[in-house]
């Protein structure tokens, strides 16, 4: 697949889009609440993925992780740019859930379980850490400094939160 992407094969690009666009767009939507702006960032990020595919090294992790990081960084860059208003950075899981559920597109509901269900097994601390890192785009060191939580604690909470999600994923 990677060779096809490097050759700019249209069919391979379509396949990539079909398989991953939902998950990647989801990452951006968690960080950028505004639907139009999120679509714009997704557009740019997807082009970037196709342009930078030559620099992707399979030894450094799977393709999805690499693409997810590009999307997350694009979205975070956007929230830190001047055009992005400050108020938009107060996204929380509930905002996101609300945005997804109220969206006219019913695809999310069809695709599977919602974020609320995925998150309901997390305890308060784990939710908070996921909100900061996964939804607002803070780094773990930023979270540790900002909320005065020891770095090791932040790390272990990230781990326990993802562990919960892992078990959920197994069920899915």
């Amino acid at each position, binding site marked *: 697949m990677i060779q096809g992407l490097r050759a700019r094969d249209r069919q391979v690009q379509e396949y990539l889009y079909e398989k991953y*666009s*939902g*998950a990647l767009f989801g990452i951006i939507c968690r960080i950028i609440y505004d639907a139009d702006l999120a679509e714009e960032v997704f557009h740019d990020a997807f082009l970037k993925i196709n342009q930078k595919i030559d620099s992707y090294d399979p030894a450094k992790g799977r393709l999805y992780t690499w693409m*997810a990081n590009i999307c997350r960084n694009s979205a975070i860059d956007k929230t830190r740019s001047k055009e992005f208003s400050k108020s938009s950075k107060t996204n929380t899981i509930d905002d996101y859930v609300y945005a997804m559920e109220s969206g006219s597109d019913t695809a999310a509901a069809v695709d599977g379980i919602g974020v609320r269900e995925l998150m309901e097994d997390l305890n308060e601390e784990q939710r908070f850490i996921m909100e900061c890192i996964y939804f607002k785009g803070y780094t773990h060191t930023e979270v540790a400094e900002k909320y005065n939580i020891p770095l090791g604690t932040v790390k272990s909470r990230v781990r326990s939160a993802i562990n919960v999600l892992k078990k959920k994923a197994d069920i899915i």
Partner: protein
Amino acid sequence: MDIQNYISSGKLELFVLGDLNETEQQEVLSMARKYPEIQEELKAIEAAMFAFDKASGKKPSAEVKDRIFSSLEASLPAQESPDRPGRPESVEKEVKLYPGANPWKPFAVAASLTAVLAIAAAAYFAYSYFDAEERYAVALEQNAILADDARSNQVRFDELDQSMERLLSGNFERIPMKGEGLPMQEDALVDVFWDKESSEVLLSVNQLADLDENSDYQLWAIGADGPVGIGLVNPSERLNLQHMQAAGAAQAFAITIEPRGGSESPTLEKLVVLGEVS
């Protein structure tokens, strides 16, 4: 190294979330290569994140997909994001992301450097040119002055040469005329050179006061028939031979001050110098 400890440190999760720096990333990768357990854990975390994203995300609108693929298609030949109306900031972003990708940049830099150097060189040579032009004009002028000097010197030399020739070829007698004992100018001193055979008379002023513009010095040859005016004397032309009119016979020569242009007969009250022929 306790692998279980490493796995539970949370580092692997942060690695998947892209929240580690370059050094830490390299560390995780080398650990994963060394320990299959870590490799397995990484895979599980990646799978979990994908599953989570997939389950919670939704597909973007069909319109976005169309836009993306038309952008991808348009970028095919040039391998670059094209300029599309209505989305200027996306194009700008691409350009910023790959500043080194423009193959013309080094040429542009080289060209502008060359241009700057060329402008500097042009300014320098223009300055040199105008400077040389100016100095050339000055030199020409000086040359013209020198040529004038040379010409006038040539004329003077010819005159002197003629006088010398005349003086040497003839049989001239020197008659000094002095103002001593006369009331006008005590220190006046004028020499007359007279060739009795050819009647030619030359005169050299040694010391003679300047006159006002209404008067002239007049030379007289005093013979048996009385004084005869033989020309006006130029007092400023000192120690230079002045050619006078001929004098056939004379016992003495004298100079008087006369009204401008000279007189028929000398004004004896204004006798300046006198010299007798020996």
